[in-house]
C-alpha cells in the first residue's frame, strides 16, 4: 500500500464529507438530494473497502461481498425514500 495513495484517499474522503455536510446546510431534500447523498456515501465506502481495508488486492469474492453490502444498503434506502409520501 503506498503512502501517496492513502493520503489521496483521505483527501477525497474529506471532500466527499464536506459535500455531504453542504447538502445538509443548503437544506436540499427530495429524491435528487437522496440520490446524491447515496452516491457520495458509496464513493466513500468503496474507497474505505478497497484502500483502507486493502481489498483491492484481495479476491473478487471478498471485494464483491463488501461492495455488494454497500450497494444493497443503498438500494434499500433508495426504495424506502421512493415509496415514502412526500
Amino acid at each position: 500500500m503506498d503512502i501517496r495513495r492513502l493520503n489521496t484517499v483521505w483527501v477525497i474522503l474529506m471532500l466527499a464529507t464536506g459535500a455531504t455536510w453542504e447538502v445538509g446546510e443548503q437544506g436540499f431534500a427530495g429524491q435528487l438530494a437522496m440520490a446524491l447523498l447515496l452516491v457520495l456515501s458509496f464513493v466513500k465506502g468503496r474507497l474505505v473497502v478497497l484502500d483502507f481495508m486493502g481489498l483491492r488486492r484481495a479476491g473478487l469474492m471478498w471485494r464483491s461481498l463488501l461492495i455488494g453490502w454497500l450497494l444493497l444498503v443503498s438500494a434499500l434506502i433508495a426504495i424506502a425514500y421512493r415509496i415514502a409520501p412526500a
Partner: protein
Amino acid sequence: MAELTLPSHRSTAPPGDLAIWVFILAELLAFGVFFAAYAFGRAHNVALFNEMQATLDRQAGAINTVLLITASACVARAVEAVGRARQVSGARWLLAGILCGGGFLVVKGAEYAEKFSAGINLSTNTFYMFYLSLTFFHFMHVILGLVILTALWFKTRQGAYGPADMNGIESGAAYWHMVDLVWIVLFPLVYVMR
C-alpha cells in the same frame, strides 16, 4: 519467463485473519438490517422524521465523520509502516488513530448529554428510538474498536508485528475500518437525508 515460477503476489485472501472477515460480514449484516429498518420506519412517519432530524446536531455528526475517517487513515498508515518494518512510526500512527477515535466518543458523548438533558429518551418517539439505538449500537463498536487499537498499539511498541507477521495488526485494522464504513452510511442517512 522466470516470473512464471514465482508465486503470485496477488493473493485472493483478504488481509488479516479470515475469522475477522466473517465477523465483519456478520456485523455489516446487522447494521444493514438496522439501516433498512430506519429507512422503512421513516417511510411511515416522514413528517415526524424530518422534524426530529432537524433537532440533531449535524455539525457534531460531520466532525465525527472527519474524526472516524482520519482515524481509519491513520490505522492504514500504521499497517503500511509496520509492513516496511517501521514499528516506531507504526505505533505513532496507531496512537494518532486512537486519539481521533477517542475524539469521536467525546463529541458523541456531548451530543447524548445534550439530548438526555433535554429529556429525550428511547420512548420519546419513533425517530429518537431509532436514533438512540442505532447510534448507541455503533458507539459500542467504536469502544470495542478502540480497545483493539490500544492492544495493537501496545503490541506494535513491543515489536510483535513486522513484515513477516502482519496477521494481528491487519485483522484489528480491518475491524476498525468496518466501524468507519458503517458511520459513512449512518451520517448521511440519519443526519442529512430528508
